[in-house]
């Protein structure tokens, strides 16, 4: 009797696990198909570039403040922490290198992408989800205008374009923050700070790889945000849940992708 009960619980658990896994795989498949469909419907986003520019304003320009302020603080913290560590080796003049490399290679693309996911990604999901819930997308379809081409694709490209720019601004602000703390506050030699930084940062290895990262993150975050919005159940809870999922999923995906990309770029794996 007890054994039987235990067996059925176990069976239940395995069934649950199986169906959850299947659901997750199914969603990944749908998301991939969605992504490809958006790419195929991108003609209008470029032919009528005004549509994309409008979205650039909403996703990019409105994220500026949060990106700039965060970049400044992150850079200042890097300046403080870097100085603490370097000082023990008497290498505090290398602070510029530490600040610049950590920003350009890692923190710039990653933190900017995380901020972008919570600032612009959630807004995109909520907007698309509400447009769906209030039948605006249906109405557009009935007017023989494809919502994927008219609504989704311009937002996608705006996200992909604005992400590297935001990451670059984040890094620039961060370097400035490091300079403020290192040179102005602590009093490291200004010439050494900048010249060491210039010598150590390689355009291809560091800057270009950082840009590639942020383009990949931009694609991932925007595609996830759009998919969640488009796929959301057309109700208030549905849209709320989708918005949360956008932030959580895209943050995890950004961090995982960062590991993979770093492995390829800096350790020469594969």
């Amino acid at each position: 009797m007890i054994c039987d009960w235990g067996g059925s619980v176990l069976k239940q658990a395995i069934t649950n696990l199986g169906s959850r896994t299947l659901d997750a795989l199914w969603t990944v498949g749908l998301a991939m198909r969605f992504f490809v469909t958006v790419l195929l419907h991108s003609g209008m986003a470029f032919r009528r570039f005004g549509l994309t520019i409008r979205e650039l304003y909403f996703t990019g320009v409105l994220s500026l403040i949060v990106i700039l302020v965060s970049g400044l603080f992150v850079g200042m913290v890097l300046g403080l922490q870097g100085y603490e560590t370097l000082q023990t080796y008497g290498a505090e003049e290398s602070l510029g290198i530490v600040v610049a490399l950590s920003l350009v290679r890692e923190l710039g693309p990653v933190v900017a992408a995380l901020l972008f996911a919570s600032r612009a990604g959630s807004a995109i999901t909520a907007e698309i989800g509400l447009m769906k819930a209030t039948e605006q997308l249906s109405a557009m379809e009935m007017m023989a205008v494809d919502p994927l081409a008219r609504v989704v694709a311009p937002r996608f490209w705006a996200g992909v374009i604005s992400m590297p720019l935001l990451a670059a601004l984040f890094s620039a602000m961060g370097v400035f923050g490091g300079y403020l703390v290192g040179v102005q506050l602590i009093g490291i030699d200004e010439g050494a700070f900048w010249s060491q930084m210039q010598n150590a940062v390689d355009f291809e290895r560091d800057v270009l790889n950082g840009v590639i990262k942020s383009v990949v993150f931009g694609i991932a975050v925007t595609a996830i945000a759009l998919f969640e919005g488009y796929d959301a159940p057309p109700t208030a809870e549905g849209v709320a849940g989708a918005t949360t999922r956008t932030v959580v999923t895209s943050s995890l995906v950004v961090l995982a992708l960062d590991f993979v990309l770093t492995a390829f770029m800096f350790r020469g794996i594969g």
Partner: protein
Amino acid sequence: MQNDNLIEIEQLAFGYGTRSILKNINLTAKRGQVVAIMGSSGCGKTTLLRLIGGQLKANQGVVRVADESVGDLDRDGLCRLRRKMGMLFQFGALFTDMTVFDNVAFQLREHTDLPEDAIRDLVLMKLHAVGLRGAAQLMPAELSGGMARRVALARAIALDPMLVLYDEPFAGLDPISLGVTGNLIRRLTDTLGLTSVVVTHDIHESLKIVDYIYFISEGVIVAEGTADEIRASGLPFVHQFVHGEADGPVPFHYPAPPYADDLRLGGQRA
């Protein structure tokens, strides 16, 4: 020789998942007529309009609009058909990120190369027809429900379609707007030579303006006829609709177990 019937629906059956909604619908709408579809809430009227607009596919039977089987059209064919079709959504479905003016201008801008001057004149004419020319620069959030529906009506007729589907155009209108909207539908149909399918609960208003009426109940057409025939028929459905009675051939309740059982009164009675 042109077919007299713009819409021909034969033995149409449709269900969401396993729940069958429409079981056997036969319906025609002649060119230049106003046809009303009536039925209790939840009987599948909106669903029927979506089937006509090609947003849903029938499980059985055919829906022909202008001699084309809607279910068999490919994307391009459907787009071509929808350009000649306007739809007023039950809750307006106005684009919330655009002004009233831009909402009405949407299709003109998407589908024509008209200069902005001409678009302006056309939009103001359509807005004037629904009495909202003065509201052109408002955002949809600033409109009342009834106003939003009138804007949606103006948007639905922006391209002078051959067929307009109205989902409850009278709901939420005051008696004046109601009469005006009714007359507007009639007048548009007559002057532009279009065909109108009106889903409505308002039998008084619709008897004044429509040419032909269908009553749907439990997935089938239970009564049909011209306005005069319906008025004269004294059919129990009509009687129930006109007098707004809960008891009658049209069920008010969504299918449910007996009320007493649900309230757990069974035990006490026994």
